């Protein structure tokens, strides 16, 4: 369980006059849930977009499962093995839940135009496998009964879970969740937490960006804290919570501590 899934180092990204990320790096081991937290505007999503190829970094080295990769095009990153979800859900709204997950299989399947038009046996076989796998994954995240509903008709929590199923469909080395608990009520959060836990137990590696400190502290094996684009702490949740700089970043500059951060600290 000690092999490294993702190793990135020295990532910097500048937007005009704003240094969004300076020299950020982290290492994620297989089977870990790795948390990335930080106050608003700390650079979490920028970091996320850099490693998934949406933004081109100014500098940095990237290595996925022992192989270097360049996050130059988003679809190449997905192919290399990082699947992601989006902070503001981005499903294929007018396609059914099943079709959404089937799209996730795109990158691991090959059949092309001619196979599709001629309905070759190979095509049919692959198509059957895609559908089977998609059904399996819907079952896995617990929304199998909604397979034939259009994605836009699903409830918020179900849409989040569908996004996770779609990401899992790409057979990722690393699954990156961008604020999966955003906008969820506490019951939905419990269900989500169980799902993430189960995904980890099945041997997958997760990078979790989250605002909800309680969720991060409960789930993650390791945590990195960003503030103003700099990495201010790295370690186990227990250590990070007691880190002077982290406390200052979350509480130091505001007059009133937010209840969430305080709750996480008071454990």
């Amino acid at each position, binding site marked *: 369980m000690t092999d490294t899934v993702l190793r990135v180092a020295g990532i910097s990204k500048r937007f005009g006059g704003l240094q969004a990320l300076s020299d950020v790096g982290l290492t994620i081991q297989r089977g870990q849930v790795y948390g990335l937290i930080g106050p608003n505007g700390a650079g979490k999503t920028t970091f996320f977009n850099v490693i998934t190829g949406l933004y081109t970094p100014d500098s940095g080295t990237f290595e996925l499962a022992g192989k270097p990769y360049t996050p130059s095009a988003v679809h190449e990153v997905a192919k290399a093995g990082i699947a992601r979800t989006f902070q503001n859900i981005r499903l294929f709204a*007018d396609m059914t839940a099943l079709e959404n997950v089937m*799209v996730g299989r*795109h990158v691991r399947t090959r059949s092309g135009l001619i196979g599709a038009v001629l309905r070759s046996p190979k095509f049919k076989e692959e*198509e059957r496998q895609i559908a089977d796998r998609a059904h399996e994954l819907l079952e896995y995240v617990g929304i199998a009964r909604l397979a*034939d509903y259009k994605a836009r008709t699903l409830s918020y929590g179900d849409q989040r879970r569908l996004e996770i199923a779609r990401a899992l469909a790409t057979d990722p080395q690393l699954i990156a969740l961008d604020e999966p608990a955003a906008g969820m009520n506490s019951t939905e959060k419990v269900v989500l937490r169980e799902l993430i836990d189960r995904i980890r137990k099945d041997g997958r590696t997760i990078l979790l960006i989250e605002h909800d400190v309680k969720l991060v502290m409960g789930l993650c094996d390791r945590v990195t804290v960003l503030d103003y684009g700099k990495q201010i702490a790295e370690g186990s949740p227990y250590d990070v919570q007691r880190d002077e700089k982290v406390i200052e970043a979350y509480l130091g500059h505001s007059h009133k501590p937010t209840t969430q951060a305080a709750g996480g600290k008071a454990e």
Partner: protein
Amino acid sequence: MDKQKRLIVIFLAALALAILPLLLQAAGNFWVRIADTALLYVLLALGLNIVVGYAGLLDLGFVAFFAIGAYTFGLLASPHLPENFAWIAQQFGDSLHTPVWLVIPIGAAVAGVFGILLGAPTLKLRGDYLAIVTLGFGEIIRVFLNNLDQPVNITNGPKGISQIDSVRFFNIEFARALDITEDYAINSVTLYYYLFLLLVVASVIICHRLELSRIGRAWMAIREDEIAAKAMGINTRNMKLLAFGMGATFGGVSGVMFAAFQGFISPESFSLMESVMIVAMVVLGGIGHLPGVILGAVLLSALPEVLRWVSGVIDLQAVTGGRLDAAILRQLLIALAMIIVMLLRPRGLWPTPEHGKSLQRLNGAKKGGAA
């Protein structure tokens, strides 16, 4: 049971489509001609549906591919090129007669290449911006066709190309009636009807299969959310180019058939209005849904002709004292129909069903049980 029912429906539909021109033929060639044109438009609408309906790329210059197909056949199967280029005349004689079965793939390929050429610079554009660029592309092609009679006469400019070969398969000459018995013959237009029907059926099958494939799903994913599609590992650049190319191919085939059917083509036939009509067919019928698209194409292409006939029969011009004639009535009614349809059925006349397959079956069973 379910499958049997489907087979019966397909069989009846095939029978109806096969008999239709024979009935129309009895009423007059004029009616069969309307059906022929409708089928050509169905072919065009199916092609555009790949681009607009599946991949979600609004293309307002689709008629350009129709034109490219038509001119491919026009140039390869008429006396025009030998008349203007001595070396071609020397090589091939007074008139080119490339067989149509050869020109169909050539026309499809040429149109496909142009489709990709149009697609390449517009990859980053979406929605309105893409529409403007494609509209420009459609006009560029038309203007080229209109002006390429100088310095060397390639397209014969606004005069168009005439004396284009008609279709000939084996020993069947489509330009002439086919005598079955002494006193019964299948008219030329009816023969074309069957040819076009064959092409439409093939296209429907291709489209349907693409829709339910990895490629089709990738196109729809791009339509729904391009960034998410990329994040799922879809190479959106290639997929978009493929959609443009595939759609254009259909347009090209339709154009080849059009040129052979008419025997004469000129840039006038490929105006912006045509592009708009094809988009209207797709949208009015039900964007992305094959039966809807076909319905839209048939309605919008046949209706004007029927209206023209109706206004001729009741002598509209005399009745309204010359204020209204067929052309005006046609535009009026089509505009009105579009507004009404968009108000009452914004997703088209026959839109994609709300849910996936198993649910439809479930709902069907429920309804059946209740009844």
